[in-house]
């Protein structure tokens, strides 16, 4: 059954019971269907009716064509669009039903028709099969009426407008009879009715007790039979079954709890605090200072402070007794512990063949670099005869590094053989060396005269980096000099050592006449002028050198160009024309090259005889020790700031400002000579009265101790006034100020001593090298008559010993020999570490020795006196013949002499008296 949505809506509306105007079906017209068709009645009719859709009075019918003919309601003839309905008489329908009985179309609605009150029934054409059939019967009069009448109104309205809101006319609700839908049953079930008949009791009393009080008494229920009815409890069998099995389900449920918090997010913020201390302004300070309170306070407190300070002075509060206790055990170490262990040895076949090492120097700052200078191993005669060959073979200074024992790292070119050299203490890139004269002063070989007996300067600052990197083996790649000639670059590609040219050589005429045997840098806190007086050194670096040579002179050199430029300009011009410096030479000391003159020339003339001493080694009081940081607090000099540049590059003219004279610099020095003498002198120059020339003072003291050339004069690193001198076959220790002689002198050894050096870490230890290649280790605290240890190092003569402290665990000793080999030895622990009070003990020992010397002197004098007296005594005893112990002849002789004397006396008296003539004589 097709239901248009409209009709369903309509049915829904009808269920609510709203009353609206009933409109006929005007589907055929096609007008706007805003109308609702409503039928108010709801009846329960047969299923045939359209009650299911809310139209109980409508009965769909099928009219066959025969029926249509009979009843004259043929489609499109009688019933048309305009008039889709037809009124049929009731009688007609009944007749039709009778005639055709079951076949009649009206059969389903037979009852309705019969009951129909009116005369005519309405049949409507259901063209669109709205109710399922092509016709339908309207069963009630009212519906009929409404159908017939309103359509006219609808037609009218439909034609007028579309979509007009219908006019709502209020109809008050009409009473309708109750239609039961079965809800009564539910109500009946729910309602509470009395199901039990109520029991009625009537209670009466005797009239006379009416109104009186009622007395109630108790009665036991069990006292009267049937007074009660009991329901005793019994165990009902139904309930005694034990449940043996029970199905139980368990479930683990996590305890879940929800919680939430909310944090207040504060965004990060930068916060800073700055504070500064409270301070008084100057006025407030003044105020405070002048207050009485402060004065009183200070006075009252001062005493306590003073006591406390004095306490500290009396007793050393910082002395650690515990630690001091431990050191004493190692004071007497055995011999076996002290030895020198071979660490490394360097030799080079190319440069060092037949050469002897003349001087060894450790690099002061870079670890593991040691420089070695070599000379030819020839005697004097051979030197002369082979002088031609020596021109070609230049002996360089080689730099060795621990990392490479075969190839030297750097080579410094020397104009001639360097006999001694030293690193500058302020700047280890400057090296000064003294040369040996290749020639013996032959004028024919001009070329060499230029380079003999000179002081040479090298500047290796460019190679410093390379030396430092020698360990890592990065050779040649990091060289910073840009303008290098090609041949040197070719050298770099191989493992050849770098070749450094010298910067400057001293001038020939003014230098030494023979080989320079010793060279020292003056320490950087003072400098000397032409008079030899010490001034403060403003530059803060070492600028002066001292050299000595067996030509009986000691020269002082200054690295700065001299003030007088007039003279030098001509010389310089000449020099420039003559020699052009090769491009790879650093120009640090260009101003000095070949025109370098000494500042002071001090002669050492002999005091009693004419002639001069020929010094070989010199030792100054004020030495700058590489290996020991001196406390220079007494010389607080602020050097002139040169900026970051190397001060040596800017040394030109000595400062024009007046320099302060330093009073407490000692200008004395010790000198060892070729003849084995040790001389103590002063370098201050004096003015000679007549000529006004500057001459040097005569030496104060002279001692002849050694039998050969003095090879070493050296101050102890621990005591400034103790000097070791080694020469010939013995050595001696001197104390400055003790003029009577050495405080210790060794006995002559079997082999010549060639070199000596103090140990850097132990105050009483020093090393002596011998010509048979042995090293004697002397320990003054152990024994003083012989070395505490002897160790063989090489087969040839030892030429140089230099110890060096690298770290507290590593102490090295560099020993060079005649064959050009450099041995590096490690000093063992006992030899390198002093015992706790070693210094004090050694000092004590020296003082004792001095006292002993004094005593000896006194005794000498005493003995001399004694000897004289003894002689006198002897003399006297000879004359006087006292006692009977003399022999007979002696007695007779004595008597004869007495008699002769007596006679002489007699004669004199008689002559005096005039009794005797002069000619009278005894026979």
């Amino acid at each position, binding site marked *: 059954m097709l239901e248009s949505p409209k009709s369903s809506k309509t049915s829904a509306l009808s269920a609510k019971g709203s009353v609206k105007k009933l409109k006929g079906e005007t589907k055929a017209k096609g007008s706007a269907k805003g109308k609702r068709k409503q039928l108010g009645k709801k009846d329960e009719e047969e299923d045939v009716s359209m009650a299911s859709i809310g139209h109980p009075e409508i009965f769909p019918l099928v009219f066959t064509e025969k029926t249509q003919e009979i009843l004259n309601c043929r489609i499109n003839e009688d019933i048309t669009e305009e008039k889709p309905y037809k009124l049929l008489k009731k009688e007609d329908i009944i007749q039709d039903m009778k005639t055709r009985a079951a076949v009649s179309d009206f059969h389903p609605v037979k009852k309705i028709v019969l009951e129909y009150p009116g005369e005519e029934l309405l049949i409507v054409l259901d063209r669109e099969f709205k109710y399922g059939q092509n016709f339908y019967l309207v069963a009630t009069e009212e519906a009929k009426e409404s159908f017939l009448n309103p359509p006219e109104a609808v037609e009218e309205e439909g034609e007028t407008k579309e979509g007009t809101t219908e006019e709502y006319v209020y109809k008050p609700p009409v009473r309708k009879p109750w239609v039961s839908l079965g809800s009564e049953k539910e109500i009946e079930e729910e309602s509470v009715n009395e199901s039990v008949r109520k029991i009625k009791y009537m209670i009466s009393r005797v009239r006379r007790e009416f109104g009186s009080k009622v007395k109630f008494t108790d009665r036991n229920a069990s006292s009267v039979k049937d007074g009660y009815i009991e329901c005793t409890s019994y165990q009902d069998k139904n309930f005694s079954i034990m449940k043996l099995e029970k199905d139980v389900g368990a479930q683990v449920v996590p305890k879940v709890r929800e919680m939430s918090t909310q944090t207040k997010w504060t965004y990060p913020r930068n916060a800073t605090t700055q504070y500064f*201390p*409270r*301070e*008084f302004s100057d006025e407030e*300070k003044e105020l*405070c*200072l*002048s207050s009485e*309170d*402060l*004065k009183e*306070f*200070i*006075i*009252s*407190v*001062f005493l*306590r*402070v*003073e006591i*406390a*300070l004095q306490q*500290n*002075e009396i007793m*050393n*509060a*910082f002395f650690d007794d515990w630690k001091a206790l431990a050191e004493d055990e190692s004071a007497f170490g055995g011999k076996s512990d002290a030895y020198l262990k071979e660490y490394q040895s360097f030799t080079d076949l190319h440069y060092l063949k037949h050469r002897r090492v003349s001087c060894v120097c450790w690099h002061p700052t870079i670890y593991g670099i040691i420089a070695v200078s070599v000379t030819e191993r020839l005697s004097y005669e051979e030197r002369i005869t082979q002088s031609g060959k020596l021109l070609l073979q230049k002996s360089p200074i080689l730099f060795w590094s621990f990392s490479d024992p075969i190839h030297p790292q750097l080579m410094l070119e020397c104009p001639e053989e360097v006999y001694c050299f030293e690193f500058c203490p302020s700047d280890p890139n400057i090296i000064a060396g003294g040369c040996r004269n290749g020639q013996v002063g032959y004028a024919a070989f001009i070329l060499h005269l230029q380079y003999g007996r000179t002081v040479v300067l090298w500047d290796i600052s460019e190679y410093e980096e390379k030396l430092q990197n020698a360990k890592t083996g990065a050779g040649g790649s990091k060289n910073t000099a840009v303008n290098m000639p090609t041949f040197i670059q070719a050298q770099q590609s191989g493992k050849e050592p770098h070749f450094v040219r010298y910067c400057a050589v001293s001038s020939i005429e003014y230098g030494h006449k023979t080989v320079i045997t010793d060279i020292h840098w003056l320490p950087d806190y003072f400098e000397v002028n032409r008079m030899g007086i010490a001034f403060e050194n403003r530059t803060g670096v070492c600028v002066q050198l001292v050299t000595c040579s067996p030509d009986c002179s000691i020269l002082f050199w200054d690295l700065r160009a001299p003030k007088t430029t007039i003279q030098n300009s001509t010389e310089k011009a000449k020099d420039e024309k003559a020699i052009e410096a090769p491009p790879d030479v650093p120009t640090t000391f260009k101003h000095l090259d070949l025109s370098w003159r000494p500042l002071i020339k001090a002669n050492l003339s002999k005091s009693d005889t004419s002639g001069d001493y020929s010094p070989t080694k010199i030792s100054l009081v004020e030495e700058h020790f590489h290996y020991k940081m001196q406390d220079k607090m007494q010389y607080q000099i602020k050097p002139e700031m040169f900026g970051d540049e190397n001060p040596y590059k800017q040394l030109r003219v000595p400062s024009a400002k007046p320099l302060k004279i330093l009073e407490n610099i000692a200008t004395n020095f010790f000198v060892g000579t070729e003849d084995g003498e040790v001389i103590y002198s002063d370098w201050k120059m004096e003015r000679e009265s007549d000529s006004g020339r500057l001459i040097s003072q005569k030496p104060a003291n002279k001692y002849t101790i050694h039998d050969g050339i003095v090879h070493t004069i050296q101050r102890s690193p621990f005591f400034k006034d103790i000097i070791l001198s080694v020469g010939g076959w013995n050595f001696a220790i001197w104390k400055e100020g003790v003029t009577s002689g050495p405080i210790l002198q060794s006995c002559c050894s079997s082999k010549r001593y060639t070199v000596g050096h103090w140990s850097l870490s132990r105050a009483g230890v020093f090393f002596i090298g011998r010509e048979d290649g042995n090293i004697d280790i002397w320990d003054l605290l152990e024994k003083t008559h012989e070395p505490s240890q002897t160790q063989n190092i090489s087969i040839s003569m030892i030429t140089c010993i230099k110890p060096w402290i690298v770290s507290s665990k590593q102490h090295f000793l560099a020993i060079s020999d005649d064959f050009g080999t450099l041995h590096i030895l490690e000093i063992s622990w006992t030899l390198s570490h002093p015992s706790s009070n070693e210094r004090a003990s050694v000092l004590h020992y020296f003082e004792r020795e001095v006292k002993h010397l004094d005593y000896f002197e006194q005794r000498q004098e005493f003995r001399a006196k004694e000897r004289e007296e003894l002689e006198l005594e002897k003399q006297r005893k000879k004359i006087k013949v006292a006692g009977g112990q003399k022999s007979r002849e002696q007695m007779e002789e004595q008597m004869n002499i007495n008699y002769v004397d007596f006679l002489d006396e007699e004669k004199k008296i008689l002559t005096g008296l005039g009794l005797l003539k002069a000619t009278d004589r005894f026979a």
Partner: protein
Amino acid sequence: MAEVEETLKRIQSQKGVQGIIVVNSEGIPIKSTVDNSTTVQYAGLMHSFIMKARSTVRDIDPQNDLTFLRIRSKKNEIMIAPGKSPSASGFQASC
């Protein structure tokens, strides 16, 4: 004023004395022989220390009072003499 100077000079001239600082009761330095930053540092550090020491002594015995304070370290010693109002502290190096 001159007396104060003279006394301070006498202390300063003792062997091993590195410097003297005079500080008032609040810890603000009044006079000093060393540079400003050192002065401020010492004054700041010592002030609370002195307070603590003094309060300790007085806590134990209220009749007692702090007379002298010496702080000895490995390298040097600091001596503090507290007074009623200003307090002086000097420090001395080890010999």
